[in-house]
């Protein structure tokens, strides 16, 4: 088993090394597909190994479903009671295996898609090297058996995200976006690091399993400690107030957006919360903060998504919004529901991004929704797949998103029933966001595929090649059955929850809502989703009369939405410019005072040197004189004694 797990990590690492070190040599082989084929084979191999690992874990009895596989000791500081020894080891339990399956499964499809998408791009080998490295880092993050290793993966995926956002580094917008993502993530990482140090000093272990044991019987965890981890999670998973990097990250190639910035990396924050759920449930009030941040993020970015023109920006804000849902789920103790949403979201959001990539590919790089329209005639397959994805995102039954989103809303309502009245507000925010989600999903599909064509006259779209179409079909199928297959709360069919239960902290005891209430909520959610989907479709299919009227009626609101609530501008005023001012002051100080001191020292020694350099006149015999005179002087000293 250890071999399987180790191979799971080594395969993508080897693919990254081969493509990164020798890619230039074989980049042109197999019509330029060689690097992609290598990386995709490795990713697919990883998926097979993940399935093997899944089989192994399933075979274990339910109470003991966790396999710790230590590989070697990484850091051993020795010492007495506070003995710090950090192993490199893998932990296979339901949570990590679930994530590994999603990452490698969806990942393999996106790798396959990338082969065709990147076929004519420069630097394919570099691209696939980064992508494989990302897969490796993500697996380290998920499978690592202690927090330090998780942090290594955490930073690794951050690095790969930076590299891939800035893949087209000649374009300054891409390079800037990469830097922004990196810097914003750093803020979160500081929280993670501090919390990790604190955990070590408080509980004396960083091992996931040992920490779980250490927390048994602990009355309360310091709130700030848990908040530190949460700050890390908000950075990586793009929550308020650190979400600003994710929309900009769309500067990267579209498959990267699908893999890293929608399906896998950004869910690392949810993974951390789930992994540390025993710790979070003991921290007073922290989960409420999580829930509120999640709900507000969902609402906020849902609103922004309403008026974006760029097809990828719509999807990016939608991703932020859906991640907010997941945090809301974690915040109301429904960790398994959050994980459920992670899985379904990975399916349909990857599908939407890949579909958007196919559209952009067909339109030779056009991303503006107002320059699309009527594409379902030219791109019927892509249109069908994307419509499925959008329906799933909107939460139309019986597609995947409906069940997972409904579960989170149900859990929030449930928490409200247990006396936390503020949770009803959260539920309300969630329902409003669901309505927004349905609306902008419908708008996206309508603007892109329905109505009159607004294409530039010289663009002739063509359907995507097979390597791009196959992942779309598979993901579309998963988006359809993913929800039905993994859990329907109302009928008590919840295999994913039972599977994940041993890894997660349980929900607080209490009566569950009655079957009637569950069904009522379900129907309400379905009704809201269908209604707003209809409205969105109708408004953006034809003459845009209704939205125009609304825009004229509320011009300030319209501007605020289109301007993304000016969050970037506010950050610029509040953070970037003051910092720049301080930096300029430092520069002045450096140039005038620090450099001045050095210049002073330099001119003093230059002054001294002008006196001495007379001696170095280039005449050999003058040197000889000083030499001999020196010898004579010492001889004189010697004979005098």
């Amino acid at each position, binding site marked *: 088993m250890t071999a399987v797990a180790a191979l799971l990590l080594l395969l993508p690492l080897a693919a990254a090394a081969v493509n990164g070190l020798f890619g230039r040599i074989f980049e042109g082989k197999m019509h330029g597909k060689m690097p992609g084929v290598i990386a995709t084979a490795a990713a697919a191999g990883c998926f097979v190994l993940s399935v093997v690992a899944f089989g192994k874990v399933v075979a274990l009895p339910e109470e003991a479903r966790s396999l710790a596989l230590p590989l070697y000791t990484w850091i051993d500081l020795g010492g007495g009671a506070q003995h710090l020894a950090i192993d490199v080891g893998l932990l296979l339990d339901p949570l990590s295996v679930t994530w590994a399956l999603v990452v490698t499964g969806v990942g393999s499809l996106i790798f396959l898609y990338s082969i065709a998408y990147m076929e004519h791009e420069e630097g394919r080998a570099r691209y696939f090297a980064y992508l494989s490295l990302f897969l490796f880092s993500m697996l380290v993050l998920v499978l690592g058996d202690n927090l330090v290793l998780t942090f290594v993966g955490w930073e690794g995926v951050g690095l790969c995200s930076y590299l891939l956002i800035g893949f087209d580094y000649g374009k300054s917008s891409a390079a800037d976006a990469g830097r922004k993502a990196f810097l914003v993530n750093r803020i979160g990482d500081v929280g993670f690091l501090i919390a990790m140090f604190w955990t070590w000093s408080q509980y004396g272990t960083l091992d996931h399993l040992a920490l779980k044991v250490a927390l048994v019987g602990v009355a309360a965890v310091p709130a700030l400690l848990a908040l530190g981890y949460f700050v890390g999670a908000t950075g990586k998973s793009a929550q308020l107030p650190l979400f600003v990097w994710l929309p900009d990250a769309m500067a990267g190639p579209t498959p990267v957006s699908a893999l890293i910035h929608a399906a896998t990396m950004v869910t690392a924050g949810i993974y951390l919360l789930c992994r540390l759920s025993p710790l979070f449930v003991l921290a007073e009030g922290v989960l409420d903060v999580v829930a509120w941040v999640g709900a507000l993020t969902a609402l906020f970015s849902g609103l922004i998504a309403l008026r974006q023109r760029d097809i990828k920006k719509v999807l990016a804000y939608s991703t932020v919004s859906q991640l907010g849902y997941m945090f809301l789920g974690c915040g109301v103790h429904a960790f398994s529901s959050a994980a459920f949403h992670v899985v379904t979201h990975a399916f349909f959001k990857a599908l939407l991004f890949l579909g958007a990539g196919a559209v952009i590919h067909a339109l030779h790089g056009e991303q503006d929704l107002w320059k699309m329209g009527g594409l379902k005639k030219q791109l019927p397959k892509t249109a069908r797949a994307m419509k499925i994805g959008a329906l799933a995102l909107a939460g139309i039954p019986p597609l995947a998103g409906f069940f997972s989103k409904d579960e989170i809303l149900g859990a929030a309502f449930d928490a409200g029933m247990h006396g936390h009245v503020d949770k009803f507000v959260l539920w309300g925010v969630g329902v409003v966001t669901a309505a927004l989600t349905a609306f902008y999903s419908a708008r996206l599909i309508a603007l892109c595929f329905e109505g009159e064509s607004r294409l530039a006259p010289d663009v002739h779209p063509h359907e995507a090649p097979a390597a791009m179409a196959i992942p779309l079909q598979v993901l579309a199928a998963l988006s359809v059955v993913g929800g039905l297959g993994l859990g329907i709360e109302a009928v008590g069919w919840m295999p994913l929850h039972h599977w994940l239960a041993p890894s997660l902290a349980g929900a607080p005891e209490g009566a569950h809502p009655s079957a009637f209430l569950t069904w009522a909520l379900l129907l309400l959610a379905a009704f809201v989703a269908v209604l707003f989907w209809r409205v969105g479709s109708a408004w953006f299919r034809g003459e845009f009369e209704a939205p125009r009227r609304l825009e004229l009626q509320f011009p300030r609101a319209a501007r605020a939405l289109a301007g993304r609530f000016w969050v970037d501008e506010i950050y610029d005023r509040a953070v970037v410019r003051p910092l720049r001012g301080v930096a300029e002051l430092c520069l002045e100080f450096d140039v005038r005072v620090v450099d001045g001191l050095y210049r002073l020292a330099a001119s003093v020694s230059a002054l001294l040197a002008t006196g001495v350099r007379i001696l170095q006149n*280039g*005449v*050999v*015999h003058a040197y*000889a004189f000083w030499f001999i005179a020196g010898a004579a002087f010492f001889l004189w000293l010697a004979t005098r004694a």
Partner: protein
Amino acid sequence: MVPQSWYLLLSAALFTLGVAGFAARRNSLVMFMSVELMLNAANVAFVACARAHEPVRGTVYALFVIAIAASEVAVGLALVLALFRLKRTVNADEIRELRA
């Protein structure tokens, strides 16, 4: 028997002649020869002083000095040759490019 001091006297005289030659001549070849004289003076002193103690070691030191002298002459003459190619002179007075 000859007193040791006679040998040292000879060594000192040879050394002084070498120093004087190095100081007074401007032909760089002759300056090199003067250096050889000084090295020889040192050898005489080595061997003479070692005679009263460990004559073999004196000889060994002298051998090392001879080897180093040979290296010095080889490199030095090569430099003189290269310099001559560049400046058409071996006159130390006319070569003063390396001033500050």
